[in-house]
C-alpha cells in the first residue's frame, strides 16, 4: 500500500512497490493522459510532475513516492497556467499527433515555474527530454515563449 497525492487528491495504490508509476497511473487509476512511448526514460511521453520536478514516470518505482505529490495533465488542465499554455499552443498550431503533448505541457510548466522569462535556448533545453517526431519543435518553443509573455504574473 502506497499513499500519495494524485492531482490534488489523496490516493492509495494497492500495486506492488516495484511497479512503474507509469503503469500504476494508467492501469490502476486509469489516468490515460500519461502516455507510454518507450518505457526506458528516453522519450518523455510519460512525464509527470513529482513534487515540483518533471520526471519520466516509467523510471519511478511506486514504492519511492510515498507521501509525494504527482500531477498529470488531468490535474494540470484545471489550472489558469494551463489555460495560458492552451491558448499559446493553439495559436501556433503546435499540436500535431498529440502523443508527446501531455508530457510536453508538463515540461512547459516546469520551465516557466523555474523561470518565467526563459530565453529560447532555455526553453529548448527544458523540453530536450521530451521527444516530438512531428513538429520539428519550432512551434512548441514558440508556444512556450508566447505563454510566458501573455501569461505574465501566472508564473
Amino acid at each position, binding site marked *: 500500500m502506497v499513499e500519495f497525492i494524485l492531482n490534488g487528491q489523496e490516493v492509495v495504490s494497492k500495486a506492488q512497490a516495484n511497479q512503474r508509476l507509469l503503469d500504476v497511473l494508467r492501469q490502476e487509476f*486509469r489516468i*490515460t*493522459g500519461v*502516455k*507510454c*512511448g*518507450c*518505457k*526506458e526514460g*528516453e*522519450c518523455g*511521453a510519460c512525464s509527470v510532475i513529482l513534487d515540483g520536478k518533471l520526471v519520466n514516470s516509467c523510471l519511478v518505482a511506486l514504492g519511492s513516492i510515498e507521501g509525494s505529490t504527482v500531477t*498529470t*495533465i*488531468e490535474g494540470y*488542465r484545471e489550472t489558469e497556467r494551463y489555460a495560458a499554455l*492552451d491558448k499559446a*499552443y*493553439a*495559436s*501556433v*498550431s*503546435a*499540436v*500535431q*499527433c*498529440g*502523443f*508527446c*503533448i*501531455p508530457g510536453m*505541457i508538463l515540461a512547459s510548466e516546469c520551465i516557466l515555474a523555474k523561470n518565467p522569462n526563459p530565453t*529560447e*535556448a532555455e*526553453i*529548448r*533545453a527544458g*523540453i*530536450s*527530454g*521530451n*521527444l*516530438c*517526431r*512531428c*513538429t*520539428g*519543435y*519550432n*512551434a*512548441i*518553443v514558440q508556444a512556450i515563449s508566447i505563454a510566458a509573455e501573455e501569461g505574465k504574473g501566472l508564473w
Partner: protein
Amino acid sequence: MEAISKPVKKKDHDAKMSGRALYVDDHVLEGMLLGRLLHSAKAKARITRITLPELPEGYYVVDKHDVPGINYVHIVQDDTPVFVEDTVEYVGDPILMVVGPELKEVERILTEIVVVYEELVPILDMLKSDTVFFNYNYAKGDIQRALKEADRVFIETFQTGYQEQAYLETQGMLAYPHDGRMTVRGSLQCPYYVHGAVAKALGYEEKDVQIIQDVTGGGFGGKEAFPSILACQTAVAAKKANKPVKVIFERREDMEFTSKRHPSVCTYKVAVKDGEITGMDIDVLFNSGAYTTLSPVVLQRGLICANGVYRLDNLRVVGRAVKTNTVPCGAYRGFGAPQTFFAVEMMMDHLAKEMSLDSLELKQRYMVKQGDATSTGGKYHFHVPLPEMIEQIEELTNYREKRRQYRNQTGRYRKGIGMSMFFHGCGFTGSGERDIIKAVVRIRKNPDDTVEILASNSDIGQGLKTTFSKIVADTLGISLARVLIENPDTDRVPDSGPTVASRSLMTVGGLLRRAAERLKQEWQAGEEQVIEEHFVEPDFVIPFSIAEFKGDAYPTYSWSVNAIEVEVDTLTATTKILGAWGTFDVGVPVDINIILGQMEGGFLQGIGYASMEEMNCNEQGMIRNNSFSDYIIPTALDVPNLVTKIINNPYTHGPYGAKGAGELPLVGAAPAYVEAMENALGVNLNKAPFTPEDTMRVLLGGLN
C-alpha cells in the same frame, strides 16, 4: 497570404492538448484480453517443433492454424504471412500470439514456449541477394552512344541506410467480435487497406468487417501497410478467443520488427563531353527485406526521380528491389525519393568539382523548367520555381560567399555549407489514382444545417481534419464549427483512398471542394442532403503506362531548395548544425501554421536521416539499434536555427491552389547536410547518414 491560408485553431486541438484524446491503448473493454507476439529469433530457418507449456484457463495460443481465411496479408502482392507457415524469413517473423487477461502471465507463457529451428543460411547483404522481387527500367535518348562518345565517364556509388519512422505512439490494434462481425480499431493511416486485409484473413465478407481509426500518434508511412498485418493477427486472435483482444507493441519490438525506409545502393555512370553532361546511366538497388510489402511502388518513385531536377537527353535508369532475410521495408515519408535524390545531388556535387565549378553553378545549368519533359516522357506542366527559390536561400544564407570561404580550411573548427534542390511528385505514382484507388467522398448536410465530411483519410497529426473542414466551410460560406469530421469508420465513410503519397489534401481535398460547391448550389435549409464525388483525372495529364514506364507519373510537383550550414570539431568529430534553411512550394497553404508545421517537422526528420539516425543489423540479422538510446532522433537542442519559407505558386487544379505537402520537406535534407560536411572536410562523401563516427573515420584518413 491567401484568405484560406489564415490559421485557425485545429479541430483536434482541445482533445489532444488536454490529454482527453483516446489512443488505442487507452481503450479498455469488458473481458478484454491482451496479446503479445512470439517473433522468430532466427533470420532463416525451418521450424521443426514448437513446444507449448500448459496454458492457464482463459489463455490462448494463436497461430497459422487459427486463420480462418487466407494466411497472407493483403498488401500489394500477398506474400506476407499473418502467422508464419513452416519457415521463418527474418528475425521478427511472427510465429504465434499468446493472449490472455494478464500481460505478465502472457509474457511468462511466451518465455516458456520452445521453438526448435533448423537453421538455414540467411542472406543479409542486399548485394548478395539471389531474389529480385521487382525490377523496372526505362530510358530515353541514346545512353550507349553518350557513354561511348564521352570525353570522360564518372562512376560513383552512393549508399543510404534504414530510417525508422519513430512515431511516438507504437503500433497498436484492438479487435472485437460482435454479432457475427469483426471490428478492428487502432493506430493506422489507411482504414480500407486494413479492411480488405482483415476480410481476407478472416474469410469474411467485406460487410462483416468494420475498421475504425483511433487517434493516431504519428505515422509517417509506418502505419500505411504494417497495421494491416497487426490487424489480421489481432482479429484472428479475437475470433479464436471470441473476446476483445488488444495488442500494443513495445518500443523495442516496434523498432526491430516494423517496416522502415529501404536502404539503398545507387551507382551513377555519367558521360561528360566538351564540358557538358551528356548522359546518365543509373542503377538503383533497394533492400526490400523478407517480403514484398510496398517495395514495387517505393522503387517506382525512387526511379522516376533518379535524375533529380536535371534535364538530361540521354538517360537510362535500372532498378531492383531485392529480397534479404531482414525486416521488411515499407513506406516512409518520401517513399523512395530521399534515396535517389541523395545520390543524384551528391553526384552533381562531385561532378562539379571534377569540372572545376561550384555545384550550384553546375546544377543551375541543367535545372528543368516549365514545359520540359520529365524523366519518363511526361511534362512539367506548371511553373518550376527553383530559380527564385535558390535566390531566396542565397539571401537568407549568403550561400555562394560562404561556400567559397569554407574551402581549404585548417584549424580545429571547420565550417561548411551545402545546398540541395528537389521535388516531390504529388499523389500516387502513375495511374494508381485512376485505375486502382478511384476515390469517393461524401458530404452530408444534416437537418440542423451542419455538414459532415465522410472520407476515409485519417488525421495522423498532419492536420487533415482541419484542412478538410476549412475547404468545406469556406466553399459553403459557413463557420468552421458547423463542419463536422470524425475519425474514419468504414461503416460510415466511403473509400476515398489511403492517407499516403501527399495525396489527401490535393486529391481528396479537391473532391471535397467539388462536393461542397455542388451542395452550395443545391442547398436546402433544414433538409438532409448527401453529395458524392468521384475521382476524375485532370485532362492535361499524359496517361502513365507502367509497362512502358512512360507518361506523367504525377500531375504536378512540389518543389524545394534546402541549405544547411555546419561546424565540425575536428578534435571530437562532432558537428554542430549552425543553420538549416528550406524554402518550399506546396501550392497555396490551406493553413499556414499547418503547412509550416509539416515543413519544420519533415525537414528535421530529414536532418535526422542525414546526420544521426543510424540503424544496422548484426551478423545474425538482428536490428542492433532498437531503442531511443541506440537510435537517436533529433531533440529540441539539435537544430535550434531551422528556418522554413513558403513561396506562393498556386496549383490551378488543386483545392484553393493546394498540392502535395507532407513528404516534400524530408526529401532533400540529406544531400544538403552531406554537401556541407564535404565543404567542411574537403573530401567527397557518398553515404547517408553521415554520423560523427563517419567524420572520425574521415579525419583518421579511413574513409575516402
